[in-house]
């Protein structure tokens, strides 16, 4: 029979563990404080990370008649929630996400039988038509999955994390994690290696309601703005076909996926409209070489016009209206914080007109 007292005891190394623990804790705190000072000197400031958890917080708040902003980073940076609330009479919920294809979010709202509200969606054709499992599409799925499956423990970690992020500048998941820092280790390149395009660095400030503004350092000429600017053209260039798929087969597959997206988009919009809801697509300002690049790859008469025509949704193309077309994007893709407020004010009458139709 087993003894009533366990015979197994682990060995404890004979060291002054209490003193060592206190010393290690003190050193880590000192190192963290030094790192905090360093990253603040680089221009970082405490602010939230835009995580799937933060997005899920706001997806949960969607009510049947809510006004919801979805889309990519242009909807996130360029719409001001206060100005929209003033103009539309209700505060919208910000569900746009940087670097995403918003179609899965539109589909999610369309499949929500209760939802009959208003969707204001940014539409960058290159992002909207991104097929699975491309990163823009996957990013949206990740956020939706978090919304659908997150646990009590994950919620608790998220709320604790937000508290820390609002006080510590070094908690920047885009730039300052160990994984990101390792990417800066100078290692010679490898022949034949073509990695994914580099993402832009941290250049925004996001609040708990996900109102996002471009960081001031990115809005003025300087190294940060140059860095962000340099990221767009590679990111907005479709990747080459995989080496192991014949180009014709790849082109055919992509063509089919894009056709399917047109059809799915129209179906999702009609589902929302059938319940009395509204969908308004907005093309937000973009400038310089990026505008030329997008216009070349996806001219307005292509995907934009087709989606508007086939879906029956309202469309607001910024360049159709002088008061919307007069803004400059400091880093070619987004408006500065102050301009985003003014832009939204000028956008409101067009939104109201679209809703009145």
């Amino acid at each position: 029979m087993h003894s009533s007292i366990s015979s197994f005891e682990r060995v404890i190394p004979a060291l002054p563990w209490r003193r060592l623990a206190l010393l290690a804790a003190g050193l880590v705190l000192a190192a963290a404080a030094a790192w905090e000072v360093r990253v603040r000197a680089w221009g970082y400031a405490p602010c939230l990370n835009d995580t799937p958890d933060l997005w899920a917080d706001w997806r949960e708040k969607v009510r049947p008649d809510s006004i919801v902003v979805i889309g990519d980073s242009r909807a996130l940076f360029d719409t001001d929630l206060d100005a929209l609330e003033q103009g539309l009479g209700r505060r919208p919920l910000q569900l746009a996400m940087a670097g995403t294809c918003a179609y899965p979010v539109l589909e999610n709202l369309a499949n929500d039988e209760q939802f009959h509200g208003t969707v204001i969606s940014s539409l960058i054709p290159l992002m909207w038509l991104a097929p699975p499992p491309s990163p823009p599409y996957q990013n949206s799925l990740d956020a939706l999955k978090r919304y659908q499956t997150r646990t009590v423990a994950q919620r608790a970690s998220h709320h604790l994390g937000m508290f820390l992020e609002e006080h510590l500048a070094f908690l920047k998941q885009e730039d300052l994690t160990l994984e990101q820092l390792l990417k800066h280790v100078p290692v010679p390149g490898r022949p034949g290696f073509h990695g994914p395009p580099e993402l832009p660095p941290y250049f925004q400030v996001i609040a708990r309601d996900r109102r996002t503004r471009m960081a001031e350092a990115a809005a003025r000429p300087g190294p940060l703005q140059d860095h962000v600017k340099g990221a767009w053209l590679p990111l907005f260039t479709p990747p080459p076909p995989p080496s192991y798929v014949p180009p014709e087969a790849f082109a055919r597959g992509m063509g089919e996926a894009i056709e399917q997206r047109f059809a799915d988009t129209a179906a999702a919009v009609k589902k929302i409209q059938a319940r009395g809801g509204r969908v308004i697509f907005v093309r937000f300002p973009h400038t310089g070489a990026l505008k030329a690049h997008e216009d070349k790859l996806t001219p307005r008469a292509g995907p934009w016009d087709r989606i508007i025509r086939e879906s029956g949704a309202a469309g607001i193309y910024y360049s159709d209206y002088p008061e919307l077309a007069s803004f400059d994007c400091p880093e070619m893709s987004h408006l500065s914080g102050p301009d985003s407020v003014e832009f939204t004010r000028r956008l409101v009458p067009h939104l109201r007109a679209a809703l009145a139709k």
Partner: protein
Amino acid sequence: MRVKADPIASPGRFHAVLFNSLTFVVFFVVVVGAYWALPSWAARKNLLLVASYIFYGAWNPPFALLLFATTALDYYLGARIARAATPGSRRAWMIASCTSNLGMLGFFKYGNFLLDNTQWLLARAGVTYVPPHLDVFLPVGISFYTFHSLSYTLDVYRGVCQPTRSLRDFTLAVSFFPQLVAGPIVRAADFLPQLVTAPSLRAGQFGWGLMLMTLGMFEKVVLADTMLAGAADAVFGYGGPLPALDAWAGVLAFAGQIFFDFAGYSTCAIGAALTLGFHLKDNFRFPYAAIGFSDFWRRWHISLSTFLRDFVYFPLGGNRSGPARAALNLMIVMFIGGLWHGAAWTFVVWGLIHGVFLVVERGLKALAGEAAWTRTFPVQLLMAAGTFAVVCLAWVFFRATSFTNAWHLIGAMAGLAPRGDALLASREILQVALVTAGLIIAHWNLRDTSIEAVVARLPAALVVTLWTLMLGAIVLTQGNGHAFIYFQF
């Protein structure tokens, strides 16, 4: 045949409270603080029990009821086994326990796998059968807590431990939060005696427990998730031709990732238990320095291998009925060991590869005997390298989402696609190489000792430096919140 899902690449849906989360930090501080503040041993046990169910229920509260039901049934069956008047009735109650535990495990974990395979077999016989897809959610850690609980009735049956009279104690033994969802598989016979009297902390026990938790966390979030997971995911997820360099880098990355992930969890569990006054046995002993496969299984997931040895291999007859029967018994054990990890034939093949090499090794040992040349350093080194290479090869089947995926990768490792796509950056290959080299060197140098013995010999200043560096690196990862791979098992 359905391709197995790939939760290893994104194990995000398997969340109780994660050790590597801010929630766990707060949970642990509150529980440990309250635990040591309570004067009564009974109150402390009640606290641990409630905390353990909160830990588990934070994932999916209804499944905490399933956990309790399993536990309560085995508590009852353990008592019936002990009270049974005849060997036949003892055996019947033991079989009832096995049936209920394995039946529940089978339903949740293997239901769809069985239906799919039935469909496939019937199709071979020309019968068209479309099975319903069971839309069941796999309870996190079910394979672990089922074995925790089952070990109790089996040990009572074997006479290794007496049944406990306290349902509370048994419920705590099964659900003790440090080891609840990803092991080690702590036998009730090892844990229940520790619940008899209040533990007292020996000098340094609390601090050493915290040190082990730091080490385990470092292994998980820094080495497994940050340094290796990216390369492993990229290589196993790639459908195109790969040069041998990338294929080997991906497989070595996974070999390191799964060790650091699982051993990291076990180390955290051992450390957390120590801070509460409990002693859990080692689950890993530097397995990548194993010389041969029997040595590997004495070092890798020790709590599972001893469970299978005691409750499957020995009851089948072990090696008492001649070499052929022993070989068959080994293959059966490794088949079960493979299947325990998941409902897919690739896991079974992984287990059978180990089974075959265990059998071959026994045969070679019988031929070579205890010859002196087998113990020379070069031969030992060669055998260790060979063992590691085959273990890595077997990991391909463990990690691959399908046999096509596995053969594709093995072909690439053999150099069948020399002009394949350079998938990994130099930096990623360098990371994998450095971590793998460090891992193997550390295991080789520590293979005949223990972490405690090594740390005891280190100067205090070096220990503080290493501890600080590990904590600093953990902070720098910013809590990516990746679940542990073994949560899914």
